[in-house]
């Protein structure tokens, strides 16, 4: 099993807020293979974005990754840390979370790069697009030259810097090569007239063009894994189609792996080979696209698929999931399956913690994991929890 670039195990992220502890991501396991697109799909508040941030260690306070391992395959890095951090190395894999902070920071770029949902707020409005991409290139270039010092320009602003800058004419942080590379990157992502556009500010770009610029910036470090968090949610469908085509082309050319996070099941279907469905901070079902979409086992996956109107065959009535997304406050979460109170197939055995089970798979070489008791048994109506019992599930908490 060496074809996985990333193995995530037991990843748990919590937010310690004034209202209490929020279990945003709970024991998440998944693998990302070389050159594949792995999809994470879920509704708002299901923890998919926090999972992405946890992968690259960008969770901000009051959030904290409390547990879990992120195994990343890099033989050189493994060799380098075999002596100093024996626990963090396993064969060719290193556990990114146990590496020193400086190494982790250095990995952002050549190992992981991210694009976010809203390109408008992800770019600095007062710096030209070309400059921002060039800066990303420059950071990578300097990091490669000297891995110890990876300060970007925005770090280290302070009184001293201010004084130096007011006396000495401002030193250009970004070199000429990086500027040229930035223009190349803009051309790569299909921006017409890249030299001209590189000089423009973000507000002069349309939403689709900005998202392309974001992709260019992410490509600056030639990442192994591109994490795309709702990359097309803010875009119109025709522009969305352009960006999805672009992502797929780049992935093939660069041989990247992509972790695609979205709430749109259609985008998942078009882009992903394997997919994980998240609900209330847990991955409730994961496996090959065929298994999850055609033979869903978890009632939540079924419900999600039943909730979307089919554009080709309009059913007279939708079958939504009743109720609302549960609170993720630790004090309000019980021990039972988090979906039990909305689940049409809730049974007695759902009232305690459910582990991941392996379910039947129709696809070779792709395991189908489900966090549901129905993974290896049939639904038995005689065991069903009545509405009263379900109500108790809620009030018990």
């Amino acid at each position, binding site marked *: 099993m060496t074809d996985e670039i990333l193995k995530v195990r037991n990843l748990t992220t919590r937010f310690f807020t004034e209202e209490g502890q929020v279990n945003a991501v709970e024991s998440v396991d998944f693998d990302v293979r070389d050159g594949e697109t792995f999809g994470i799909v879920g*509704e708002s508040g299901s923890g998919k974005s926090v999972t992405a941030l946890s992968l690259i260690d960008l969770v901000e306070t009051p959030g904290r990754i409390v547990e879990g391992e992120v195994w990343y395959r890099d033989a050189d890095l493994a060799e380098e840390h075999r002596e100093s951090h024996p626990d963090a190395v396993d064969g060719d894999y290193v556990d990114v979370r146990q590496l020193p902070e400086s190494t982790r920071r250095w990995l952002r770029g050549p190992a992981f790069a991210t694009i976010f949902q809203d390109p408008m707020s992800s770019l600095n409005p007062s710096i030209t697009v070309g400059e921002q991409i060039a800066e990303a290139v420059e950071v990578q270039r300097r990091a490669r030259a000297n891995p110890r010092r990876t300060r970007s320009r925005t770090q280290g602003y302070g009184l001293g810097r201010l004084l130096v800058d007011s006396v000495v004419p401002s030193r250009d942080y970004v070199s000429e090569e990086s500027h040229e590379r930035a223009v190349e990157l803009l051309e790569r992502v299909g921006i017409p007239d890249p030299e001209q556009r590189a000089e423009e500010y973000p507000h002069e770009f349309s939403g689709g063009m900005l998202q392309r610029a974001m992709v260019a910036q992410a490509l600056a470090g030639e990442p192994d894994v591109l994490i795309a968090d709702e990359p097309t949610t803010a875009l119109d469908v025709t522009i969305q189609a352009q960006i999805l085509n672009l992502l797929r082309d780049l992935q093939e050319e660069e041989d990247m792996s992509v972790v695609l996070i979205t709430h749109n099941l259609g985008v998942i*279907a078009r882009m992903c080979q394997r997919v994980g469905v998240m609900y209330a901070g847990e991955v409730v079902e994961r496996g090959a696209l065929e298994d999850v979409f055609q033979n869903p086992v978890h009632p939540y996956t079924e419900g999600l698929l039943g909730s979307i109107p089919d554009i*080709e065959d309009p059913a007279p009535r939708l079958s*939504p999931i009743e109720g609302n997304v549960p609170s993720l406050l630790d004090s309000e979460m019980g021990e039972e399956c988090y979906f039990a109170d909305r689940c049409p197939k809730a049974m007695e055995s759902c009232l305690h913690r459910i582990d991941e089970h392996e379910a039947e798979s129709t696809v070779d070489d792709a395991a189908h994991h489900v966090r549901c008791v129905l993974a290896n048994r049939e639904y038995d109506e005689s065991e069903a929890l009545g509405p009263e019992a379900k109500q108790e599930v809620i009030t018990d908490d």
Partner: protein
Amino acid sequence: MTDRDDDALLQVRNLRKYYEDGGGLLDRFLGNEATSVKAVDGVSFDVHEGETLGLVGESGCGKSTTGETLLRLREATGGTVAFDGEEVFDLDDESLSAFRRRAQIVFQDPFSSLDPRMTVGAIVAEGMRIHGLPESDPTVATDAELTVADETDRTVDVTVADDLDRVVEAGDDGVARVPVTVQRVETDDEDGVAYDATVDEYEELLGATVEERDGELHVAVTVTGSARQIRNARAGALLERVGLSADQVDRYPHEFSGGQRQRVGIARALALDPEFIVLDEPVSALDVSVQAQVLNLLDDLQDEFGLTYLFIAHDLSVVRHICDRVAVMYLGKVAELGPTDEIFENPDHPYTEALLESVPRAEVEEQGRRVATLSGDVPSPRNPPSGCRFRTRCPKVIPPDDVDIEQSAFRDVMDLREDVAAERLDPAEIRETEPAEYRKQEVPGITGENAAVVDEALEAVADGEFDTAAETLRERFETVCETTPPDDEPGADGEVVACHLHD
């Protein structure tokens, strides 16, 4: 289908809404010319009673502005809107108020469209308060269903206050009825007998008194609740109808989830018993599982109250699900309008085709599907393209009759013409690569006379003479799509295909 015009509840004709930009004192001082953003630029359609018309398009196409302008929430720049035969833009204050009761709106964002300082009960009841409701309708008769308990030994007659219909809704026969029970109670008085009447519905708002005259019992039912109490009770009933609970009237919006807030917004729209509701992206902000709940609710309410919807959305699957007819908008105009099934199964307009093609389907067959995408972005509504608005991106743009050229090559030529007109080309680069060579790269599919004309134009560009180049290209390649706007008036069948290919 021919008499469709007769039952059009809403008739929109050539509706226009421009936003003026610039032209202020400072702009004039600086010599900036006023420009207008043509958000809605001549939109015509009908909405028939009881149907759901979908208004669909990408962001910035003017669909929301259309919805708000036709309700007169924004002042229109031009055009007419007739609601049930009355010109909405000519209404005086009084009739405008009546129109507002009949036409309501539900907004997209359930967070910003509810006042955070009002309870949801007050939010739902606000419209009723403003319109002086509850009021009594003089044409509605009132009556009581009298139940006389066994031990009552007198003849009983009942009178009901005329304003009972403030509380009880009139039935199909135009009569508001309330059940009343009369019974005999033992008392400690000298006769030892008294009679008591109770109203079995709306106990808090209605009262019944019994009087004994000439050996007969007279029961009088009156409205005892204040207007405020009646409104509150109705707000509670509406919240229940949209799937919340009546005892939530005293809660504040922040205590509700997005889906629940959208239900509050729907209850508010229903409070005045409207006939027509503009639903402005009512489910876009909701998660799919909740979205499905709200869509089902909207369906049920339409059946129950006989509502007519104008459903504004960008999600085509939702539109397919809920709409009877669909109008596809592009850059302030209607591109295509027709019955939902026809639009989705046999789209006639190239833009509709491209839009439908782009939607990712949630099914396994979708995997790896490559979509033929439209090139470029939507042009600016400040300066929309002449003729057909879609011609700058249309994959089926029509070549002139006397020019023999492949479709895809003609698209490339048109893109080149755009670049020349906007002076986006770099003369130095063209000079360096040689015009003919540059043409082979940018417009590979052309030969003969076509190629010669393009080369000539590129040579002019290389000399920096963009105007000459643009003129050379225009002479040869001018298309009907840029000279003539396609017909976008609804035909006799109410349908629109604003495309020259369809003429």
